[in-house]
């Protein structure tokens, strides 16, 4: 496997660590951290700062009852459910978004498949499957789009992206990713706005597929 060369920006990493990132982006960042030791170390270092600030904060007194109730609960409270584990190419945060099940792909035509994991006011999160050598329909979007490669690779005007790499695309980028020839490309893509396709046909299909 080649080394990861496309990482998460400082802004997005800070937003993730401080809990200020929307759910779709947070899933992509958490999945990248699962694959990228460099960014995991950056995130844990930023958490050290959170801890140091917690050490320094002026304390607010807690009622005596709260302590007694907690001590009482230690043996009685149900154990937390074990978290969903990674499976195959999917890191734990992706398996969590999949509800612990393998993807249920929907055909989009041209051999391209997707599964929408979430779509709401915060944006959308989906898995995409692109056959080897196939282009993803050209699109631009109204905001930020993060795409993490989980299998295979794709290339576009910004470079080549392999497993673990994240492409951060702002709305000014009109990109046409093409999947590498070595294997089907599977990626996790998050946006904060619906995608807009440039060709007429995909635009007509957009409401149908919610891509």
């Amino acid at each position, binding site marked *: 496997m080649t080394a990861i060369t496309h990482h998460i920006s400082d802004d997005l990493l800070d937003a993730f660590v401080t809990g200020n990132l929307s759910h779709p982006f947070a899933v992509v960042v958490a*999945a990248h951290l699962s694959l990228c*030791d460099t960014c995991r170390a950056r995130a*844990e270092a930023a958490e050290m*700062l959170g801890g*140091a*600030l*917690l050490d*320094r904060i002026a304390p607010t007194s807690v009622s005596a009852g709260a302590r007694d109730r907690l001590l009482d609960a230690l043996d009685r409270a149900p154990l937390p459910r074990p978290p969903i584990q990674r499976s195959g190419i999917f890191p734990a945060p992706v398996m*969590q978004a999949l509800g612990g099940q393998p993807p249920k792909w929907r055909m989009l035509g041209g051999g391209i498949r997707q599964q929408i994991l979430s779509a709401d006011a915060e944006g959308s999160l989906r898995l995409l499957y692109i056959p080897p050598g196939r282009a993803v329909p050209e699109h631009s979007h109204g905001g930020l789009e993060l795409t993490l490669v989980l299998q295979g690779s794709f290339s576009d005007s910004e470079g080549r992206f392999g497993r673990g790499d994240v492409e951060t695309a702002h709305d000014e980028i009109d990109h046409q990713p093409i999947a590498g020839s070595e294997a089907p490309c599977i990626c996790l893509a998050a946006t904060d706005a619906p995608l807009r396709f440039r060709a007429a046909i995909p635009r007509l299909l957009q409401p149908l597929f919610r891509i």
Partner: protein
Amino acid sequence: MQDDTETPTQPTLWLLAVRDHRDRAAFLRLFEYFAPRLKAMLMRGGLRDGSAEDVVQDVMLTVWHKAAQFDPHRAEASAWIYRIARNRRIDLARRKPPPEPDALTEPEGSEPDAAQILALGQEAALLRKALDGMSPDQARVLEQAYFEDLPHSRISEVTGLPLGTIKSRIRLGLERLRRDLNYLRQP
């Protein structure tokens, strides 16, 4: 308590006693140290007194249940507990648990590396020293970023402050953390 020469910190030692011996006295000390700080943090984040105390209880209960996952090579107690509180806050705000990266586990039978734990503690002490050198205004902006909701465009403004010192301190620790993570990944 947070003396620069003290590594690992006292709270980290308490958390290790909870992790390794289910030590209730140590847990009580952790509660006495962190509960008032967590409550202050949660109230900064907009929770009222009563709900802040409920969340403090949730967080401390999670500390008790998940202590086995605490790794002193990679975090101090305060950073680990900050993360739990942050996750609980997200869970409550969005009504779904936040995504967490794959857990990393120590290889079976591995011995703690005292030098590594000491080095992390020294790094954290340097970080605290850098924080002490900040003006109240600068510290307040940082606290806003970590304790309150802030759109992430604001954070880049925040990090333009003499945070450079802090960030470079943090970066000093990265190489080592990364080596560690590589080590943890060995099958």
